[in-house]
């Protein structure tokens, strides 16, 4: 079974993470740390002046007032410089990490210089101000990520040692500040050593505890961000390959791993198919099929728990140890991708160091895999729906072709008879054949509409949409249909704005929409009536209105208007033939272009149809 290591060993991984992070992000983190240190330094400078004043004037302590005031002022002065620098950084919106690091080093160096002077002025090795050194160490540890805090323990100890040494050899005078304290404590080896030892030990422990707490906090923070990023990335698309790619990438990134891949069980449940990969070489990906029979590792993971592999090339559960070795993979973490009813596959991450993954990583990767499972199932459902839709449309098209072929053949033969190719017909024969032809026409129209409807469900979507101005198409269709209006003595008018209104459409689809709406308006408007086409821009949309003075639509039937095969009762009564598919084609097509359709009766008589399209 996969050994889950104690979580205390994760320092190396964390250090790595921090190094990597230092390079790529968190400049703003460092930046905000500096800002807070600057703020704290204001307090330190002011406090130094105030406490000196209180100690001297209220407590009558024998302090060297002037140097202490001067020290406070120097601190405040260089802090002002840093504050100004930071403000300039913020306004330039550009926070490169390198100059920030230099600024940090400079600040810390100046601070330690001041602290040395402070320690000297407040009594050297006997100074009651020694704990101030520790406060500075802890603050830097907490506020500035990715510094090596143990250096400060050494520096602090050296500062104490240095001040004591200089005083011991009379390079600088020893200043006693506590009345009654022996003035030669710095000459007392035992005292000096014990102070130094306790100081170093306490400082070390404090820094160690603080930095490990901070590390864990930052690690958690990163994990939460990574998990959030993962869920956001994979829920932003329904495309299966994209979901899988993002999942692999974010898992690898978050775990600071060199590579990641996702294998999903195939239909047979025997093979694990490569679905997405990140950071792995092509030759590794092409190493061969991974089957349940040969990959004990995956079998373990598929049983439901994540598996840790600390020494991958030597692990007997690996199916391709040679390839793993040559790819430089030293450790692995494999998590199951558990769907709602079954395990779908595995998510693997690879590291180029042995024992790279930890207990925390197991928990984290399992969470990522669970997120992935949800996204994967959604994408699978979506893909199935899409396939079913395609198949249905294909089926409808085939059936439609089969339906149309006999009708057109029959009509072709009928027309041969009707046009007297085979000899003259009696009036009665011609009348009967004419009726048959008319009925076949209706049938053909129905079949053609069905074909278009099937096409709207596939072809228009597959067709590339182009950005074209709306008005020329409207004008063209109106002119194309004008003869129909003239036959019925209708006035067909067109009201278009002069500025170009570009829309993103398939031109044939748009034409079909206009033909259907204008054709209907002409069809159902009695002689002498009016049909008016208007285009109006509003906001980011453009609306096209087709208004008529026709028979209208019964109010209670308006909502069914867009359903396939629906025809209004009053339309049926007119005796005008229709398939009831025209408007549902309009709706389908307009919605594919991102628009909306609506219809309402006009005051008085007639109907207004409106469709909108987003301006492109």
């Amino acid at each position, binding site marked *: 079974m996969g050994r889950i290591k104690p979580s205390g060993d994760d320092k190396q991984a964390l250090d790595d993470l921090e190094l990597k992070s230092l390079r790529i992000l968190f400049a703003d983190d460092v930046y905000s740390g500096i800002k807070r240190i600057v703020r704290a330094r204001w307090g330190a400078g002011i406090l130094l002046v105030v406490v000196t004043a209180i100690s001297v004037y209220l407590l009558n302590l024998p302090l060297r007032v002037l140097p202490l005031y001067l020290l406070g002022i120097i601190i405040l002065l260089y802090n002002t410089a840093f504050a100004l620098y930071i403000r300039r950084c913020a306004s330039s919106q550009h926070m490169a990490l390198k100059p920030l690091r230099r600024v940090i080093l400079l600040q810390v160096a100046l601070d330690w210089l001041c602290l040395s002077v402070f320690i000297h002025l407040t009594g050297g090795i006997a100074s009651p101000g020694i704990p101030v050194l520790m406060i500075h160490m802890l603050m830097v540890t907490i506020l500035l990520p990715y510094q090596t805090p143990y250096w400060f323990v050494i520096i602090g100890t050296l500062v104490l040692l240095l001040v004591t040494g200089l005083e011991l050899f009379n390079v600088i005078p020893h200043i006693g500040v506590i009345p009654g304290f022996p003035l030669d404590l710095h000459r007392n080896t035992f005292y000096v050593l014990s102070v130094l030892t306790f100081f170093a030990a306490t400082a070390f422990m404090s820094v160690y505890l603080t930095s490990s707490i901070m590390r864990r906090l930052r690690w958690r923070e990163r994990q939460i961000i990574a998990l959030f990023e993962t869920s956001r990335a994979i829920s932003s698309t329904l495309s299966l390959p994209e979901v899988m790619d993002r999942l692999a990438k974010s898992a690898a990134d978050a775990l600071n791993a060199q590579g990641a891949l996702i294998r999903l069980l195939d239909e047979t449940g025997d093979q694990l198919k490569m679905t997405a990969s990140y950071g792995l070489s092509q030759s590794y990906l092409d190493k061969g099929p991974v089957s349940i029979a040969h990959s004990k590792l995956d079998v373990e993971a598929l049983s439901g728990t994540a598996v840790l592999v600390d020494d991958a090339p030597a692990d007997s559960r690996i199916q391709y140890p040679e390839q793993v070795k040559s790819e430089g993979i030293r450790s692995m973490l494999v998590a199951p991708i558990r769907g709602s009813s079954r395990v779908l596959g595995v998510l693997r991450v690879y590291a180029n160091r042995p024992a790279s993954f930890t207990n925390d990583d197991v928990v984290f990767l399992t969470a990522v895999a669970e997120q992935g499972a949800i996204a994967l199932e959604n994408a699978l459902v979506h893909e199935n729906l899409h396939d079913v839709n395609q198949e249905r449309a294909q089926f409808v098209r085939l059936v439609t072709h089969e339906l149309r072929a006999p009708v057109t053949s029959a009509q072709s033969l009928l027309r041969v008879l009707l*046009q007297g*190719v085979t000899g003259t017909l009696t009036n009665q024969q011609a009348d009967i054949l004419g009726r048959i032809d008319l009925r076949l026409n209706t049938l053909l129209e129905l079949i053609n509409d069905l074909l278009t409807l099937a096409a709207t469900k596939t072809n228009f979507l597959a067709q590339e949409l182009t950005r074209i101005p709306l008005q020329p198409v409207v004008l063209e269709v109106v002119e194309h249909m004008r003869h129909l209006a003239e036959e019925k003595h209708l006035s067909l008018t067109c009201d278009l704005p002069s500025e170009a209104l570009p829309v993103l459409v*398939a031109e044939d689809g748009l034409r079909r929409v206009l033909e259907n709406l204008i054709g209907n308006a002409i069809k159902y408007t009695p002689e002498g009536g009016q049909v008016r086409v208007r285009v109006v821009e509003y906001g980011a949309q453009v609306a096209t209105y087709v208004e008529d003075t026709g028979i209208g639509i019964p109010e209670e039937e308006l909502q069914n208007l867009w359903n396939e095969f629906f025809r209004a009762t009053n339309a049926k009564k007119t005796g005008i033939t229709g398939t009831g598919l025209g408007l549902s084609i309009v709706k389908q097509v307009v919605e594919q272009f991102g628009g909306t359709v609506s219809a309402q009766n006009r005051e008085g008589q007639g109907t207004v149809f409106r469709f909108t399209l987003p301006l492109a």
Partner: protein
Amino acid sequence: MAKILIIDDDPDMVLAARLCLENAGHEVYEAASSREGLSSIEQVRPDIIILDVMMDTTTSGFQLALTLRSPDPNSPYAEYANIPIIMLTAIHTTSPVKLSPDSDYLPVDAFIDKPIDPTALLKQIEEILAK
């Protein structure tokens, strides 16, 4: 009058076209598949080919036209590349695909929509013969 080869797998459609064309005095030959069509072309050497767009598959008519009009000078059908082709189509009006006689995309000379209208068919034939 002209020798016209009709390539269509629908016998009724072939009959309708044959009746129109023979009535106008043309000599009509028929073939029911692309393969049969190719051998008929070699035997008959027609003046005009009427080709159904969809036979056994949805594009076999297109493919036959492309074979005949292959730009390859070594094509076995190079000598027939100049025979005018009228394509019988039912998808002309309803498909979102725009069909137009285009020498690159569809190497045909004219389209005739199904159902066949005798007058329109004869007019088209006359136009092509007049060229």
